[in-house]
């Protein structure tokens, strides 16, 4: 669909699109939905070969040295295809490791993330809370971590997890090695293709990432990047709905000619364009190195809404075809919910936004 959103150098995003289109088909995506904790390992291998994990990481650690904006283009491509790869995670965590004041001991891991030799999940939520908990559920002492976190995307396959833990009475961010003393549990989820698993740590080795006020930033940048993935998905829904509405007839004309369908499509378009505006606004702030919590929360809330809404209404446009397993829209319907809950739901971020705005107004 048309939009005047400015594009960074798009070559790489188009290449990702091409590879995904030639590699991934509907049947493969459907198979991933069938069993808990699924991950498209062959596609990941290909992604690693092509250097995607290091896309927006510095060349000095083996990345491709591209910008955040390039990552947003790729995130839209992934979202459009409902492909799940831990690229946003690699970038956000990789950059975090490099920015840490104990950079030297973490750098090797950042390099592994850039090369794709290792992947990472962001596991900041706990069971029973829809947002970032008030206190970490994990305890870190003497370099090892214990406790349990809620299902995180890529938790079932990643070598590392970014977690929040209590350390000597303070909350810290830490990078946990999942190869030992960590148990992954993959429940049957409405979207099994996120390689999600909850993680139990029984003394798993962990390194503190010094400079721990980074928590807010990590989460804020992650939700902004995810917003682009959501916008990609929502746009795919709008395109699928349009194609169906042009092709299928009722009462002697394409259903796309009926006002009810037109107004629904306009409402989807409106939701997407508001989300795109909010996401681009946040991206500019990231580029200027001053991402505000309001901008991040607005990107999150509007993207959650746009993708949920686009998926549900695109199904509605499809009528009976929309509710079959063979049809593709349920992939988006599921994915919209996954992405909306993984990094804190709208309930959480709306609260963060309102409190921030009110506090600002008071000052």
């Amino acid at each position: 669909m048309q939009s005047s959103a400015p594009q960074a150098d798009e070559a790489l995003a188009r290449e990702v699109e091409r590879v995904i289109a030639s590699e991934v088909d509907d049947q493969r995506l459907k198979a991933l939905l069938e069993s808990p904790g699924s991950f498209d390992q062959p596609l990941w291998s290909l992604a690693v070969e092509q250097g995607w994990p290091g896309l927006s990481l510095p060349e000095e650690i083996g990345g491709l040295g591209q910008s955040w904006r390039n990552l947003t283009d790729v995130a839209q491509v992934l979202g459009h295809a409902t492909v799940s790869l831990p690229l946003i995670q690699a970038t956000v965590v990789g950059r975090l490791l490099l920015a840490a004041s104990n950079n030297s001991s973490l750098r090797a891991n950042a390099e592994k993330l850039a090369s794709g030799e290792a992947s990472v999940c962001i596991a900041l939520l706990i069971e029973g809370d829809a947002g970032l908990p008030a206190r970490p559920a994990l305890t870190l002492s003497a370099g090892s971590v214990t406790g349990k976190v809620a299902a995180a995307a890529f938790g079932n396959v990643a070598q590392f997890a970014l977690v929040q833990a209590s350390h000597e009475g303070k909350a810290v961010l830490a990078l946990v090695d999942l190869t030992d003393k960590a148990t992954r549990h993959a429940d049957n989820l409405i979207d099994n293709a996120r390689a999600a698993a909850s993680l139990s740590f029984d003394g798993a080795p962990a390194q503190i990432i010094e400079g721990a006020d980074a928590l807010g930033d990590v989460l804020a940048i992650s939700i902004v990047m995810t917003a682009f993935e959501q916008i990609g998905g929502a746009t795919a829904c709008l395109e699928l709905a349009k194609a169906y509405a042009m092709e299928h007839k009722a009462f002697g004309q394409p259903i796309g000619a009926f006002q009810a369908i037109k107004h629904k499509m306009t409402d989807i378009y409106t939701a997407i364009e508001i989300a795109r505006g909010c996401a681009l606004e946040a991206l500019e702030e990231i580029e200027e190195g001053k991402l505000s919590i309001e901008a991040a929360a607005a990107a999150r809330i509007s993207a959650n809404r746009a993708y949920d809404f686009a998926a549900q209404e695109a199904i509605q446009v499809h009528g009976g075809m929309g509710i079959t397993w063979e049809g593709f829209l349920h992939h988006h319907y599921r994915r919209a919910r996954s992405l909306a809950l993984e990094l804190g739901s709208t309930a959480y971020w709306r609260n963060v936004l309102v409190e921030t705005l009110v506090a600002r107004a008071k000052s």
Partner: protein
Amino acid sequence: MNAELDQYRQECRAWLQSNAPACCVQDGMTTDEEIALARQWQAVKADAGYAAITLPVEYGGAGKSELHKIVFSEEEMQHRLPRQYFIISLSNALPTFLHYAQSEELKRELGPKAIRGEHLWCQMFSEPSAGSDLAAVRLKAEKDGDDWVLNGQKLWTSWAQIADWGVILTRTDPTVAKHKGLSYFFVNMKTPGIEVRPIKRFTGDEDLNEVFFDNVRIPDSQRLGEVNGGFMVAIHTLMMERYAVSSVNAPLDEIIELAQHAKVGGLPALNDSGIRETIADTFVEQQGLRNINRRAVQAISDGGSPGPEGAIRKLLMGESLLRAGKLAMDLMGPEGLRADSDNRFARSWLNAPVLRIAGGTDEVLKNTVAERILGLPQEMRPDKGKAFNELL
């Protein structure tokens, strides 16, 4: 409610208390096991006169009023019985057959079998190009001597894969206006040339099918209604169920319970702005519908017809389940994504699209309410006044 009905309700309740438990659905049952149980439950009900309460006694029914059926349904819903399998069979397909079939003998033979659950009937209306627009049916029935030969495809047929009989809407004259060239038949689903292919819903349910007809030959005696008079018969089928007892509501008590226990960033979920509106909106909507429902039952009980406002239930149901399910998931956080059957909210959310689409999309229903209840004009349609084959 009068005393006789109160008395009837007491009887139903007592009878269900002793007879329902043996036929209740258990966790982990396969679809096949549930269907077997459903057949058994029909037989148990039939013996006691509860299987087809409003159908004539001579065909195996109980010959009682619509209101008796409502009372029984309300009580039956208190148990976890396998109800869904025979709803279309007994509420739509069979009554149409009994109303229009020419052979009294056949009615006396097939009626009781369907009512006892020995037979199951399906209803074949929708097609790939005839969903919202029922009159756009293409499946051809051509006269050949005393027989009709059927060719084409039906879609979204519930339980066709286990059906013994079916009713079907066909095109018998493509040269006249689209709703004037349709005829209606009943057909044995084992007739050669019928092929049933299951369609899997994205929820995993396996009730739907495509049904292909390849030179399927049926005698003219299986016609229901006039030749080219099938559209009215189909409308009759769809209108058969005057009043549906439905238990699909957003689970308000569970939402309140969730709100009391869940946390959002360490704060009680009950502080969340969304949940408070959802609790209030859900209560208000259910309160309004409860009253509409009570008035409908009262009207039937007074020998009248329910008011048209009952139509809004279906309009509200899908949206309401979607909204409540989504919001509850938002409060549960990552756990909200669990697909197991005890995550009622994710199930609501997953099923909501079906409720907004099945039995007429919300959009079509809104047109219907506007035209039939509010009296607004039909919109301009390009198919008006044209022969069906001009539109292809």
